[in-house]
């Protein structure tokens, strides 16, 4: 079965420190992976995606993600966290078989403390 796991419900980081939000996946065929962010009472905003090519993907707001095929992971990273990065983050994988269907992880709440 195709699935996405976000092993941490919450991540706490001090402002200015690097942050990592973890994601692992299980998918048939080549993985197409996405990260979205949700601010309070808002819809999801697209951050970045991995389709093919360079394992380090750069996205919006200074975020980047590292694709690791051997570990089936796609961790989201930022070198220096901001308080305004505090939000709910979702990892998703595009399902093989067509129709642009996504499977989402349960989400990780990031709290950046001043």
């Amino acid at each position: 079965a195709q699935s996405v796991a976000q092993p941490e419900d919450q991540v706490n980081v001090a402002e200015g420190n690097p942050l990592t939000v973890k994601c692992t996946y299980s998918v048939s065929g080549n993985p197409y992976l996405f990260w979205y962010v949700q601010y309070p009472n808002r819809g999801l905003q697209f951050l970045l995606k991995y389709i093919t090519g360079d394992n380090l993907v750069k996205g919006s707001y200074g975020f980047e993600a590292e694709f690791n095929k051997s570990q089936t992971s796609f961790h989201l990273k930022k070198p220096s966290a901001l308080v305004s990065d505090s939000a709910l983050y979702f990892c998703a994988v595009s399902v093989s078989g067509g129709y642009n269907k996504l499977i989402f992880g349960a989400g990780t709440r990031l709290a950046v403390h001043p």
Partner: protein
Amino acid sequence: DVKVTQSSRYLVKRTGEKVFLECVQDMDHENMFWYRQDPGLGLRLIYFSYDVKMKEKGDIPEGYSVSREKKERFSLILESASTNQTSMYLCASSLNLERADTQYFGPGTRLTVL
């Protein structure tokens, strides 16, 4: 920029009522999706549509139906609302059926069924 709008941000209905949630996108996208978001469960796909008048069941279609009479508009219908349908509902659209396509989300409708 892609814009996806949803008719209501907050909605309160009574058990047994028929509920309509409307979604409109302005980028001529082929695909439209309805998800519900619940804490600890991430986003789960209810229905999607890949063309006018075409629809496919997602992972949790029970108790819901959809309508897509025009390309830009996708409606989610709760025929007889129940308390277990209290949730955040998110609409999304994407350009076509490619797995690599990005889905763009609306702001969400928080539905409470009393």
